[in-house]
């Protein structure tokens, strides 16, 4: 799903958009998607019906040529809600004049429009037009009529005229090479073989016959990819298989009298597959002010991401660069913890293994990712930053499929297929860094692993039609662990004080049931998650936190009239937390409120110890009413009410309003404003480590944007935004009276902040040989920790963020892509002197103005080369992903000498070539 498409459908068709790439004569009925990740066509879709067939007029001048061209023209077009056709483009060209004639013919077609749930919807179609020159008739004196093409209309190709009840001579199946999925709608045409030898016709000999074939027999494959050709004469026969989006296949075979020849042919998907089989369910098309979606194929090819779905989002406008190539999602200057990531409608506790290595959910099972940098719908909450919503895909139903992938970090496997009327998908992955890293680290380097870094994850999903809807059961989880030992050479044992140990895991089980009937739709999804975070840092910090979360999401929606929709929902989040924590007191306010502070460590008896079993609840109600004021104008007021249970005990009221207008057919204007709240972090309102009287933080989001569709798949968009934040949690130096005792306040809600800027994007959507985008964000994110303090840059402010991505498909299934990033350095607090902590011998910095300096500008070029080999039954994909091609030394942070008088930089990752391969069958 690309951004342009989403905008078009969202605005015009009340949030219901269906784009189905089909080739006539295959009707636009619900069909299993031909590609992994393509969502199924929803039930209730009625395909458009052709009402006015048209003829393609074969230009007389061309027909008079010595060798008039013949072959297939593939045309893509959109059937509008009034039945007319538009946006016709040539996907597969034959001859300029014939192409023009084909476009003319398509422009004159008229359909009964497709409908969904009773409403007319736009449908994207493709049509394969077989064109053969007309026979050279004896000219009739005085006749100036132009000859017509042999296949004059783009209606379903009729069976051969000589289709008497003759026996079937060739029967077979057409499948997609590599994945063996049956291909529906393939046009299989038999004709005389001429001088061609038996076997597959090489590409160089795949010329159309110079004359009109003496006979042709044609068939179209059904759902199972089956076809049969009857009445084929004995002898050598040439069979051509044409399927939109696939390379043409020609075979010559011998047909003997009385025999039925059984065949199975495998067609190779074209590198520049024009398909964009993307179905948005109604629930997913709530209009957003700024919404960027990344298609699966784009995800898999973005350089520098190793094909990782969630990391691809980091390249979109408004997203700042994460340090050290990590996985932080820094949206519009907000801290990663201020944004929320949903998967299947529920939050996930960790996005990436080890903070950024690779995402915890298999990218092959991700259908789409919606990136909502601000002003998002009321269904998302407890975040003052942005939101990312990950939608998983269903297992395939076109047969059982498997895949194995291997890269430098891990190896994984995926199995999927049909189960009854439904489908399943199973996946698992494990790293082998624990085998490699200890081997490459120098033995005398002072660093050794008791348990080297290792991670694993798993995913399982079953989707099954039930009671007119779909029931989804999903389970997934992740486990990371490492134990590092900083050992001096005079130490023999494994002293805990030299040890850094971390283990983080979670397991989650979801159920979801969705159903539509008439104008109504409903969804309910309970989810249970258990996650654990254990960390020990040189006996100073010791965390062991286990959380059981039960969350339930339910939604009911009803379309009102032709252009409006009312939706109400609830999100109930319940956390049962068991914590055993030992840590030094939180840092003092030595640098000013929010985000700063020195790492001050006291002795063992200065530790604060907390053992607690606690409950935190966060029930929320939300509703939105999308009002179609006009064909081109939509207004969506929404509201979210969130109750934060003890110790916060407060209700957050979050009204939001969004506006969209189609100024022209290609221009969309959006605007929005809304309140967003976020509860204090667990440690911040803890009775010992924090302040239980803290209130939720708040933000006002405002934005206005414009999006312009350009020719082809190009688009340009820009969004200006301003965020005001208040009640931010800030460190407090004060003592307060609580429970009759004087206690340190530690935190209060004295902070305020502001973020403003603009995001711009020029994008070439997936569709041809080239895809990519240029995104530029200019912004400023500032915070005032306490009243009276001066404004300071927030930790995640990056003034300029430029990302250029381009990927180009080369012949023979090669693809090359590049990414270049140029961003402002991260803010840093200058330090020029320090204080020696005499009680532990460690230095303490004397910090300068909070975030008063910046690291040097970051720039990096990444390169990616992909090559796919498609064989009959397997497909092998390999890639080389080189990060930081010219090995730029980009400083990420400063480290200081013992007295803080000298410093040096820790650079970002050096050049890292990464190789991966994936075998599918």
């Amino acid at each position, binding site marked *: 799903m690309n951004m342009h498409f989403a905008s078009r459908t969202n605005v015009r068709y009340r949030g219901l958009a269906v784009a189905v790439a089909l080739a006539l004569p295959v009707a636009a009925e619900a069909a299993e998607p031909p590609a992994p990740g393509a969502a199924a066509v929803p039930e209730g879709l009625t395909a458009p019906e052709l009402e006015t067939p048209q003829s393609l007029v074969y230009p007389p001048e061309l027909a008079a040529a010595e060798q008039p061209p013949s072959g297939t023209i593939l045309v893509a077009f959109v059937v509008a809600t009034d039945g007319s056709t538009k946006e016709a483009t040539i996907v597969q060209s034959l001859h300029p004049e014939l192409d023009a004639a084909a476009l003319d013919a398509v422009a004159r077609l008229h359909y009964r429009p497709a409908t969904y749930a009773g409403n007319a919807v736009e449908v994207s179609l493709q049509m394969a037009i077989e064109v053969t020159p007309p026979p050279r008739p004896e000219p009739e004196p005085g006749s100036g009529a132009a000859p017509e093409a042999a296949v004059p209309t783009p209606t379903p190709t009729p069976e051969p005229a000589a289709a008497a009840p003759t026996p079937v001579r060739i029967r077979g199946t057409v499948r997609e090479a590599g994945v063996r999925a049956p291909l529906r709608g393939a046009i299989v045409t038999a004709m005389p073989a001429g001088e061609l030898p038996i076997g597959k016709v090489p590409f160089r000999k795949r010329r159309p016959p110079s004359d009109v074939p003496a006979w042709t027999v044609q068939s179209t494959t059904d759902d199972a990819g089956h076809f049969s050709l009857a009445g084929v004469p004995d002898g050598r026969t040439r069979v051509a298989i044409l399927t939109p989006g696939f390379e043409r296949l020609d075979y010559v075979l011998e047909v003997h009298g009385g025999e039925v020849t059984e065949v199975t042919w495998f067609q190779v998907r074209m590198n520049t597959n024009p398909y964009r089989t993307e179905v948005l369910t109604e629930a997913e098309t709530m209009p957003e002010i700024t919404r960027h979606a990344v298609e699966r194929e784009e995800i898999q090819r973005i350089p520098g991401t190793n094909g990782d779905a969630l990391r691809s989002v980091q390249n979109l406008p408004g997203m700042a660069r994460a340090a050290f190539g990590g996985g*932080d999602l820094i949206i519009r200057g907000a801290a990663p913890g201020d944004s929320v990531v949903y998967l299947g409608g529920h939050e996930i506790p960790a996005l990436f293994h080890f903070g950024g290595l690779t995402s915890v959910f298999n990218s092959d099972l991700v259908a789409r990712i919606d990136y909502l940098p601000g002003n998002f719908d009321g269904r998302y909450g407890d975040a003052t930053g942005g939101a990312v919503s990950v939608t998983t895909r269903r297992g395939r139903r076109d047969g059982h499929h498997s895949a194995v992938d291997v890269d430098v970090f891990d190896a994984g496997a995926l199995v999927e297929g049909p189960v009854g009327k439904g489908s399943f998908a199973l996946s698992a992955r494990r790293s082998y860094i624990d085998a490699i890293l200890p081997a490459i680290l120098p033995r005398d380097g002072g660093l050794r692993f008791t348990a080297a870094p290792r991670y694993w994850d798993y995913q399982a999903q079953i989707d099954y039609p039930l009671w007119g809807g779909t029931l989804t059961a999903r389970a997934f989880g992740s486990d990371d662990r490492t134990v590092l030992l900083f050992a001096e050479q*005079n130490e023999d044992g494994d002293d805990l*004080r030299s040890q850094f140990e971390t283990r983080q895991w979670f397991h989650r089980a979801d159920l979801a049931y969705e159903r539509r009937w008439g104008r109504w739709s409903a969804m309910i999804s309970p989810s249970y998650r258990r996650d654990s975070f254990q960390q020990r840092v040189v006996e100073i910090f010791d965390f062991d936190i286990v959380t059981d979360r039960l969350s339930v999401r339910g939604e009911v929606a009803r379309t009102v009239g032709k252009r409006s929709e009312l939706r109400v929902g609830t999100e109930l989040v319940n956390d049962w937390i068991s914590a055993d924590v030992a840590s030094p007191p939180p840092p003092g306010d030595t640098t000013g409120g929010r985000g700063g502070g020195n790492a*001050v460590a006291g*002795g063992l008896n200065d530790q604060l110890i907390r053992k607690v079993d606690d409950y935190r609840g966060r029930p929320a109600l939300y509703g939105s009413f999308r009002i179609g004021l006009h064909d081109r104008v939509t207004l969506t007021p929404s509201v979210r009410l969130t109750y934060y249970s003890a110790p916060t005990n407060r209700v957050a009221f979050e009204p939001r309003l969004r506006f969209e207008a189609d100024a022209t057919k290609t221009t969309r204007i959006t605007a929005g404003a809304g309140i967003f709240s976020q509860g204090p972090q667990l440690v911040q309102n803890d009775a010992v480590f924090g302040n239980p009287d803290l209130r939720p933080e708040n933000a006002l989001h405002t934005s206005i944007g414009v999006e312009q569709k350009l020719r082809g798949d190009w688009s340009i968009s820009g969004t200006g935004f301003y965020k005001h934040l208040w009640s931010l949690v800030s460190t407090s130096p004060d003592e307060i009276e609580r429970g009759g005792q004087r206690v340190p306040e530690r935190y209060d809600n004295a902070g305020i902040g502001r973020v403003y800027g603009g995001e711009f994007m020029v994008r070439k959507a997936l569709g041809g040989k080239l895809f990519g985008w240029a995104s530029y964000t200019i912004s400023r994110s500032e915070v005032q920790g306490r009243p009276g303090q001066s404004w300071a840059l927030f930790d995640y402010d990056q003034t300029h963020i430029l990302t250029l991505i381009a990927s180009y498909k080369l012949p023979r299934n090669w693809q090359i892509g590049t990414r270049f990033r140029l961003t402002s350095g991260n803010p840093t607090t200058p330090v020029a002197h320090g204080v*020696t902590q005499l009680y532990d011998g460690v230095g303490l910095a*004397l910090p300068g103005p909070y975030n008063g300096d910046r690291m040097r500008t970051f720039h990096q070029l990444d390169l990616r080369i992909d090559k796919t080999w498609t064989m009959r039954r397997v497909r092998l994909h390999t890639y080389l992903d080189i990060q930081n091609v010219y090995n730029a030394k980009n400083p990420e942070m400063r*480290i200081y000498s*013992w007295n803080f008088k000298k410093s*040096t930089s820790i650079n970002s990752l050096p050049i890292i070539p990464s190789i991966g391969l994936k075998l599918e069958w």
Partner: protein
Amino acid sequence: MVGMVRGLVWLFAFAMGVVGCGDLPDSQLVIERRILAARPWVVDALEPTAAGARDRAEALPLETLQIDPLWVGPNGVIPSDDVDAIWIACELTLGAAPFTCLSERFGDLTLDDLPACVVDDPDAPPSSPRQVPSPCLLERTGAPSFTVPLSTGILAGADLELTVVTGDPDGTSTEACADALLAGEWDPPSDCIYGVQVVPVGPKPTLLAAAQAAGLVPDDVALPPADDPDTHPRITSFRVTVLDDDGEAVGEAREVARGEIVDVPRGTTLRIDTTSPQADLQKFSVVVNDGASAEEREESYTGQWFRTWGSQLATASLSPESYNEWTLDPDGDDPELPEDGLAHLYYVVRDARHGVAWWWFTARVVP
């Protein structure tokens, strides 16, 4: 959580070898005046000290403490009397991190404004709270002593924060260094030296019992079990052995007295073995859930090694029986051997609370 994730990323970066610390000076090489540690100990206790008892690191109100700093330089240990230092005492708020007491007042203070640390009402009876201004100036000496005040904050469990400031006899004055710090300057003159020490007031259960007896704490508040006072550890043995090129001992190890000078041929590697008694490590209570219960912990040793010249095998030691190797040869960019041919080795051991001990000796490098 985010900080931890960043920490993990840093560790990973470290593991990947992208961390470049080579540009920074060796923290264990003493090439300028430094203060390595400070040892506050009770010299005037409220109750007589038992014979043979180890020095206490924490004091009760009205007891007098002596602060002994370890000033060192490239030419060896510097006597405290030779250091012009300013000591500023500040009463930490309960549960606050060290150095927050003074640093939160930066910008509002000048040296001239700081009062002396004397009881605000000397005529008050000894049993009543004897408030002392905070922050305040201790006597201006390299090794001051002072009496712990009896204030409501102290009775509530607060500790004392001591900040020491000194300048350079040949450069910035101590007063200028102090003013720069108190003004909140983040880039004071580079030859200024700053240190901060926490003086624990306790044991806390004893203090709480006293506060309850004085009516400052309700009678129904349960008192935690009594703890022994935090005491300083000892270094009971400091032995030096000469190693040959194969790392084998040449001759017997011999005890080296604190500050002793030994003659060592250039290029020799010395093995130093130290002993701090396991018995000196104390058990103590740490409160859980803000005092709802307590957990018992045990101290542990952390030793730091410093040198003025040569190279050393390790920078730290973690066990009671600790060793290190000191090779009397220049290491990398080390400075040239001083003309007097003396190289110094300092060893500071802490017990993870406030106990500290140190040792040093000098090698006269013989060509």
